[in-house]
């Protein structure tokens, strides 16, 4: 692959972490405000896509430290686990269970489900982008 322009290289190195942090913020505020797992995942995939447009798919996989296809499975299993938690407690499948943690606030299985959606969307979008780039 040809060497990318210096401007693009510098911008990608700074912009991708910013987009990942914004995606996490969108993910965690998603229950009561606009946002949530899907939008957060798309934002993170946008940042990683910018990185892979600049440095190529191989460098992006090294940056992520995990194969994006593997992220799809991990995300689906996380969402399934969030659903099973209520089911194992005798409640209907996907019942939301909330607990109050000190310092953090209310967390529960809907947050876990959102994190699962987030990981799945990142994995799917980034692996599709890489398939396009390597074709």
């Amino acid at each position, binding site marked *: 692959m040809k060497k990318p322009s210096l401007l*693009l290289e510098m911008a990608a190195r700074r912009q991708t972490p910013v987009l990942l942090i914004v995606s996490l913020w*969108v993910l965690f505020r998603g229950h009561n405000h*606009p946002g949530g797992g899907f939008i957060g995942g798309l*934002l993170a995939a*946008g940042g990683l*896509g910018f990185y892979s*447009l600049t440095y190529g798919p191989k460098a992006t996989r090294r940056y992520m430290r995990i194969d994006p296809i593997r992220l799809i499975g991990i995300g689906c299993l996380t969402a399934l686990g969030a659903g099973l938690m209520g089911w194992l407690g005798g409640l209907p499948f996907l019942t939301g269970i909330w607990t109050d943690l000190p310092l953090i606030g209310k967390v529960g299985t809907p947050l876990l489900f959102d994190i699962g959606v987030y990981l799945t969307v990142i994995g799917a979008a980034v692996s599709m982008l890489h398939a396009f780039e390597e074709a």
Partner: protein
Amino acid sequence: MLELLAGAQFAAMIVLLIAAFITFIRLAKGPKLADRVAALDLLAVIFIGMMLLHTISTGEQVYLDAVMVLAMISFIGTIGFARYIIHERERS
């Protein structure tokens, strides 16, 4: 004072609408792909301005987040198009 602000919003919205219309003409006519890509990038900026005006007139702060995200994301598509144009040029 409030009337002045409302009038300024109205005028700014009309100016942005005219800008969007002219940009659409360039998007439809654009002799080359690069012109169309530049028009799309400019359209994103114009829509960001429209959303900001809407935020001012309604006071809904939710749109500000959308504006921020759109401003951070919209240039990635332009970079993708630019890479596509370079690829095509190298192939031919």
